[in-house]
C-alpha cells in the first residue's frame, strides 16, 4: 500500500533535454574522481599525474563512443562554451579562405550567435515545416566562395527532427569547408554519424554533469585560438577532472544499453504524439519518423504556454516550452518561428531513460484537462 501523502502528486520530470538527472554510475565515478583526481592534472607530482591519468581515461572513453581518436577530444566548460569556441576558432583558422559561416536556421542559439560574431549576420539556411534544413540551399551555400565554416546539428533538441548531415558533409568536403556538427541533443540517445569535422557533445544531456562540455576535432582540421593565451585554450584554467571523468562514465553507461533505451523511448514518444493529436486544435511538430527517440513537441491553438506549463506543474509534471510568454525575451523559440508552426501554447518534453511508461500514461491522461482549463480561462469556446 502506498504511503504517499494524499493530494500531493509525485513529481514527473519530463524536461530532460540539455539537463537530465545524473546516471547513478556517474555519481559513483564523481565520488571516486573526487578522491583520486582532485589535484591539478597539469602538475608533475604523483597527485597531479593521478588526476591526469583519470582525465586521459575519460578522453579515451568518450573518443571511443564518438568514433574519434583520444587526442581529437577536448573538454570545455559547457556545451555553450564548446559551440562558441568551435565556431570562433575553426572560422579564425580559415580567415584566408573567407569569413562566411553557413548555419541552419534551427541551430542552437549559441551557434547562431557565435556565427554572427565571427562573420556578421549572413542569414541562416531555411528549414521546412518539419524543421529539416533545405539541403539544396545548404549545399549551395557551403559551395559558394568565401566560406570559412559550416554548422549543422545532428538533430534538433527542441522538435527532434534529424538533419541531413551526411549530404551536407559531403558537399562541405568537396568544397574543403569544415563542418561543425552539434550533436548535443543526440549523443547518448542515438548512434553518432561520422559525417563531421568538428563534433560537439553535451554531457549534461546524456546523464553526466553540467559544467563540462566535449568537442572532438578531426586531426586534419585546423583551429586557431581566439581568446587570450592559455595552456588550454578550450578550457582556460583547466578542466575539472571529476566532472570530465563522471561525464565519460555516464556516456559509457548510457551507450551500453542505448539501443534498448532508444526503442523503449521511441515507443513512448509515439504514444505521446498519438495521444496529443487527439486533443482538438493542436499541431504536433517535428518529423514524425526521422527524429530523436525521446523528444516530443506540440503547440495548442488559443493556449497561453506559460499558463499551461504552470497548470501541468501544479499537477506534478515538469515540461519545457518554446512559447514567447515563457521566455524572458518575449520572443518565441527561433526554432518554431523558422519552421512556421504555431508558437503559442507550446509544450516540449524530453524523456529520460528513467522515465516510466506509467509516468507517460499519467501525463497523457492529465494533458487534455489542463489544455481545456487554460482555454476556459481565456474564454475561447466556439472559436
Amino acid at each position, binding site marked *: 500500500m502506498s504511503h504517499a501523502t494524499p493530494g500531493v502528486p509525485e513529481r514527473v520530470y519530463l524536461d530532460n533535454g540539455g539537463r537530465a538527472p545524473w546516471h547513478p554510475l556517474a555519481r559513483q565515478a564523481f565520488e571516486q574522481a573526487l578522491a583520486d583526481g582532485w589535484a591539478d592534472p597539469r602538475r608533475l607530482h604523483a597527485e597531479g599525474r593521478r588526476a591526469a591519468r583519470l582525465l586521459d581515461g575519460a578522453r579515451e572513453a568518450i573518443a571511443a563512443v564518438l568514433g574519434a581518436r583520444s587526442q581529437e577530444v577536448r573538454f570545455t566548460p559547457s556545451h555553450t562554451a564548446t559551440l562558441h569556441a568551435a565556431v570562433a576558432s575553426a572560422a579564425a583558422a580559415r580567415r584566408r579562405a573567407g569569413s562566411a559561416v553557413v548555419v541552419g536556421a534551427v541551430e542552437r542559439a549559441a551557434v547562431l550567435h557565435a556565427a554572427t560574431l565571427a562573420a556578421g549576420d549572413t542569414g541562416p539556411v531555411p528549414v521546412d515545416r518539419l524543421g529539416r534544413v533545405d539541403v539544396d540551399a545548404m549545399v549551395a551555400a557551403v559551395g559558394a566562395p568565401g566560406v570559412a565554416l559550416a554548422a549543422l546539428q545532428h538533430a534538433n533538441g527542441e522538435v527532434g527532427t534529424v538533419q541531413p548531415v551526411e549530404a551536407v558533409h559531403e558537399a562541405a568536403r568537396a568544397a574543403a569547408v569544415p563542418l561543425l556538427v552539434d550533436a548535443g541533443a543526440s549523443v547518448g540517445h542515438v548512434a553518432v554519424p561520422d559525417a563531421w569535422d568538428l563534433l560537439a557533445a553535451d554531457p549534461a544531456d546524456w546523464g553526466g554533469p553540467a559544467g563540462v562540455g566535449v568537442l572532438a576535432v578531426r586531426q586534419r582540421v585546423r583551429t586557431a585560438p581566439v581568446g587570450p593565451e592559455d595552456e588550454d585554450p578550450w578550457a582556460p584554467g583547466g578542466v575539472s577532472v571529476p566532472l570530465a571523468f563522471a561525464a565519460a562514465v555516464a556516456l559509457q553507461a548510457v551507450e551500453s544499453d542505448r539501443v534498448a533505451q532508444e526503442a523503449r523511448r521511441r515507443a513512448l514518444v509515439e504514444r505521446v504524439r498519438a495521444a496529443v493529436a487527439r486533443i482538438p*486544435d493542436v*499541431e504536433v511538430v517535428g518529423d514524425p519518423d526521422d527524429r530523436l527517440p525521446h523528444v516530443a513537441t506540440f*503547440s495548442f*491553438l*488559443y*493556449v*497561453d*504556454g506559460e499558463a499551461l506549463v504552470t497548470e501541468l506543474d501544479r499537477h506534478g509534471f515538469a515540461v519545457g516550452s518554446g*512559447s*514567447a*510568454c515563457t521566455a524572458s525575451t*518575449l*520572443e*518565441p523559440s527561433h526554432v*518554431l*518561428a523558422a519552421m*512556421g*508552426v*504555431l*508558437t*503559442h*501554447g507550446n509544450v516540449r518534453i524530453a524523456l529520460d531513460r528513467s522515465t516510466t511508461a506509467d509516468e507517460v500514461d499519467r501525463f497523457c491522461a492529465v494533458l487534455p484537462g489542463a489544455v481545456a482549463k487554460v482555454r476556459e480561462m*481565456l474564454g*475561447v469556446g*466556439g*472559436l
Partner: protein
Amino acid sequence: MSDTLVDARGLRCPLPVIRLAAAAKGLPAGTELTVLSTDPAAKLDVPAWCRMRGHEHVGTREHRAAAPEAGDEAWDGWAVTVRLG
C-alpha cells in the same frame, strides 16, 4: 483594404490570435481582416492560425515608430491581413 480592423496592440500571445478569431466568427468567406499587434509572436501565429483554420494569410506589414512616414500612427509592431476561407 480590410473589411475589419482588430486592434490587439499591447496584448501578448495568444490574445492577438484569439481576438482575431473572435472577430472572424460568423463573417462570410472572403472577408478580409487586419489585426494590429505589438507582440512578435503574432506575426508568426496568425499565418499558422490561417493554415489550421483554412483561411488565407494575405500579407504582413511592419510598423516602425521611428520611420519618417509614421507621423501620428507611430507604433512598433505588425499589421497582419487575412482572408477568411
